[in-house]
Structure formats: C-alpha cells, structure tokens
C-alpha cells in the first residue's frame, strides 16, 4: 500500500504538467455540421437589390443604432466587424452569491461584464435568384467579478436575428426574404 502512495505526488505532478501544456482541438471544430444549414437560414436574408454597398452602409448604421463600435471593415468583400462592451450582471447570480456569503460560505464571483461581437457580411446571391445575401453572426465573451472568462459562446437565439433583420429591412425600405 505504501508503495502505491509513494507514486501519487509524482503522478499528480505529471498530470499537472501535461494538462498545462497540451490541449487538443475538438475533432468537430472545423467540420461542417448538419445544424449549420438551419443556422445559416436563421442568420441570412436576401434583399432584392443590386446595391451591395447600400446594404453595407445600412448595416453599419443599424449596428451603430444598437451601440456597436465598428472594429474593421472591407467594403470590397462586404464585411463589417463590430463589438460592444456591456454589463453582464444578472440578478439571480448576485442573489445566489450573497445568499451563500450570508450562510458563511466563501463569496462566489458573479458575471460582471461582456463583450458582444458581430459580423455583418454581404454577398451577391446566385444567378437564379438575384439580389444580395446578408448574413449576420453574433457571439459573446463574459467575465466575472474575479476577471475570469466564464462564457465564450455564439448567440444563436432566433429572436436576435429576426429583430436585427426587421430593423435592416425598415432602414433600406426593402423586404427581407428568407434565405
């Protein structure tokens, strides 16, 4: 028994070393998943216009309306990149943390701030259905009060995209067709 225990600290050190330096990309990270098609439909609309630049300008204006700051753009490829920093405080988490502290537990950090990122991409639609395709994608990074990253996630709720495209559609006086 004592022989076994002698190896424990060494093994533990090895596990620590290996886990610190080696991380492996998940096999599916760059694989086109079957759920990518419904996601594409959710995030894409077709507008009956040949004026891609007009749509880009309108996209930039809507992003500004929503409080985003433009980080990068390339109009020749139809790309806008924007982000905004906002509070990520949720009452439930704060109450839970205070509740634990009141019971004498260690204070649990709660989510404090987030960076929301958006990319807005236009491209000419195919020849059989002319127009311009617009695809918007959102994601966010959340930090807690201990300055640790707690969430890195795509924002895939349909309502975000529906609302965004409603605004865009109104701004350009064009109907946003389902892709």
């Amino acid at each position, binding site marked *: 028994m004592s022989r076994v225990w002698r190896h424990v600290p060494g093994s533990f*050190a090895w596990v620590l*070393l290996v886990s*610190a*330096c*080696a*991380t*492996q*990309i*998940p*096999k*599916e*990270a*760059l*694989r*086109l998943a079957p759920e*990518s098609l419904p*996601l*594409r439909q959710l*995030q894409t609309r077709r507008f009956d216009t040949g004026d891609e630049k007009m749509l880009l300008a309108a996209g930039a204006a809507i992003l500004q309306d929503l409080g985003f700051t433009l*980080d*990068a753009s*390339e109009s*020749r*490829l*139809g*790309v806008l*990149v924007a982000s905004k920093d906002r509070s990520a405080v949720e009452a439930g988490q704060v109450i839970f943390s205070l509740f634990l502290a009141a019971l004498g537990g260690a204070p649990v950090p709660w989510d404090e701030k987030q960076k929301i*990122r*958006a*990319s807005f*991409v236009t*491209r000419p639609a195919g020849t059989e259905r002319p127009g311009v395709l617009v*695809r918007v*994608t*959102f*994601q*966010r*990074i959340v930090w807690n009060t201990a300055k640790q*990253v707690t*969430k*890195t*996630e*795509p924002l895939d709720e349909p309502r975000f995209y529906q609302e965004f495209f409603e605004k865009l559609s109104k701004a350009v006086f064009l109907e946003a067709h389902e892709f």
Partner: protein
Amino acid sequence: MSFSPGKKRIRFATVAFACLLMSACGTSKEQLLATTASQVQLRSIQTRAFDTTDRERTLRTIIATMQDLGFVMDHADETLGSVSGTKLDRSGFQNYTLRLNVTVRPRGSTQLLVRANAQYNLVQVEDPEPYQEFFAALGRAMFLEAQQVD
C-alpha cells in the same frame, strides 16, 4: 561539504523537479518564434490549391464557409487577400476560442493557393484533420476540388 543520504535525495528531487518544470514549457518569451512541426510539413497541412483565378469570389466563399462553421469575422482585406475570424464555442464542459486566419495568393496563372492557420485556445493547430475538414467544406462551397500541394 557532505550531506546525509536523505538530504541528498531531497536536494536531487528538488533540482529534478525544477528542471522538469522549466523544460516542460521553456521560458514563455520563446513562444514568439516557436513552432513544433517542421515548417514545410505545416505549410503542406495548411495549404491547398484551387483551379480558379477569381480571387474576390474565393475570398467571399472563404468568409461564407467560415460563417457556416460558426465563426464571427475579425478582419478582411481584399488587397492582401487575407481574412480572419473567431469561433467561440463549447465542447463538452470546456469553452474554447478558435481563431482562423486564411490567406489567398496566386499560384502560376491558373490557380490560387489558400492557406489556413488555426489557433485553438493557446496552441497552434498542427493536427492535419481539422484542416482537411475545413478545406473539404471550402471545396464544396467553391464547387472545386481542394488540391494537396507538395
């Protein structure tokens, strides 16, 4: 100087552990120019040739493919033929950040070379499989075959 065998053993163990710690990661500054796979090998894993000279269409298709794969774009430059994006996702219980930079340049007069570089959290991706998946998806979107370059 003489040490008792017990003290010697402790001193040896401490030195060995310190060496192990240092050799495991090196000084963190060395990361600037560090690569683990050979450069030639890595280039071949990360590069494919496509039978087209339409640079703009290729770049736009790369952007569309990256969006299909869940990336949010970070930057794009037509003149340099370079686009990059970030994917924030979760695998099991692990959140991860995957950054991808893709560049396009001409190869001869009939082909374009597409090179993709991926960074997973804090490490460069050197496993061929994710790149194969990426180029397979890109090839389908381009309606062209992604050709291995030697």
